């Protein structure tokens, strides 16, 4: 009797990867899932931070998908290793700062490492020919297989019958005839297959899972690099870009102002690391200062913050500034008017 083959499935939390894992599991293969955390995953972060929408239960889509399929899921932190992929993508960026093709190659190469370390036999992805404009074009799929090093141990069950047979198919570890021949941008075949398997609740597919595809986020990241004079980032940087109103009134500093209570609570966790401002005479948001204040900047920052407080119509607002040395000082300022907040300050 031949031993049970083992496959590692890249699980994004979307429908396609969930279906791909299920299709192979149904053939008697032992499947386990892997999900990579780059720091740019949308995955409910803003939902976790903001009060708005709290009535909906917040869950990790990849974990939820794995549970629906009935497989284990291993979540791997690749924040540091991902930096060169984002900063110098060999295949360039998509519409914004999304290095989709390099990202896919990198993740499959990491899955290959995991596969070999854990003595699995092949890799599964939910890719479909023509589903996405950059990383799933027909001429690109062989590039992904080759440059990731996975070669023919990479099986795409949803479109396998449109591609040359891979090792798992040739060796009979899976039955090629029971794999699928999806192609193109239509979601109907996937939705029909989801219905067949009884998956009625799944994350909305295709493209919305990465902040790097978001124009506003990409603009904030570009601004961060420009202001620091180097293309680099730390974990805190990329988390803070997801939160609050970002205003850069001077090249050497910006304000990150909470827009509601949940964001205020989240930003409060960074008070030990960043100089910050709060209004003390009137209720108002917390603002972190990213950068350094020069002469006159403290008053400027305080006047901006006062504009976003409940004292915006008052003659004067008292603002407390806590600096890098954690020393406090009070500033009495006139809140800015709406017209004084220059549109170009908004990042």
């Amino acid at each position, binding site marked *: 009797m031949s031993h049970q083959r083992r496959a590692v499935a890249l699980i994004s939390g979307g429908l396609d990867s969930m279906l791909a894992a299920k299709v192979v599991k149904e053939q008697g293969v032992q499947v386990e899932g892997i999900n990579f955390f780059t720091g740019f995953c949308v995955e409910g972060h803003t939902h976790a931070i903001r009060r708005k929408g709290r009535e909906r239960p917040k869950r*990790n889509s990849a974990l939820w998908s794995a549970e629906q399929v009935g497989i284990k899921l*291993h*979540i791997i932190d690749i924040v540091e290793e991902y930096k060169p992929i984002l900063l110098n993508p060999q295949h360039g960026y998509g519409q914004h700062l999304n290095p989709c093709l390099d990202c896919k190659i990198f993740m499959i190469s990491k899955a290959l490492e995991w596969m070999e370390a854990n003595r699995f036999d092949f890799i599964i992805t939910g890719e479909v020919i023509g589903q996405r404009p950059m990383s799933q074009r027909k001429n690109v799929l062989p590039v992904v297989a080759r440059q990731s090093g996975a070669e023919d141990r990479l099986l795409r069950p949803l479109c396998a019958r449109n591609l040359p047979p891979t090792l798992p198919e040739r060796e009979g570890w899976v039955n090629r005839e029971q794999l699928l021949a999806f192609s193109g941008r239509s979601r109907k075949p996937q939705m029909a297959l989801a219905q067949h398997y009884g998956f009625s609740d799944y994350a909305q597919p295709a493209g919305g899972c990465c902040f790097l595809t978001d124009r506003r986020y990409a603009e904030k990241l570009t601004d961060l690099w420009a202001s620091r004079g180097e293309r680099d980032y730390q974990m805190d940087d990329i988390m803070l870009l997801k939160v609050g109103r970002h205003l850069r009134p001077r090249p050497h500093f910006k304000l990150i102002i909470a827009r509601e209570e949940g964001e205020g609570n989240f930003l409060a966790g960074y008070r030990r690391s960043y100089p910050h401002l709060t209004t003390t005479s009137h209720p108002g948001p917390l603002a972190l200062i990213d950068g350094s204040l020069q002469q006159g900047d403290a008053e400027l920052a305080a006047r901006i913050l006062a504009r976003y407080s409940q004292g915006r119509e008052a003659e004067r607002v008292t603002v407390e500034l806590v600096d890098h040395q954690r020393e406090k000082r009070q500033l009495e300022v006139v809140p800015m008017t709406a017209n004084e907040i220059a549109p170009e300050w908004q990042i």
Partner: protein
Amino acid sequence: MKTVTLNARHLLCPLPVIRLQQQVAELAAESRIEIICTDPGALQDIPAWCRIHGHRLLAVHEEEGELTLWVEVGNSGTPA
């Protein structure tokens, strides 16, 4: 059996799960972990992760925006 405490305050999903996963990989079956989180998503994600890996969620306590979850390690041989 000794209980290991993990501080996952101010970490957003899925980082609390990743920290738990890394800790579990170093412990023997029946070891216990107490994980303290502030991301409300942990209420969904940690129990889900425990279910799919065969670990036991012993208890959950919520107080003043902090969640404490107690987990007993199962026999699944989970790689990190």
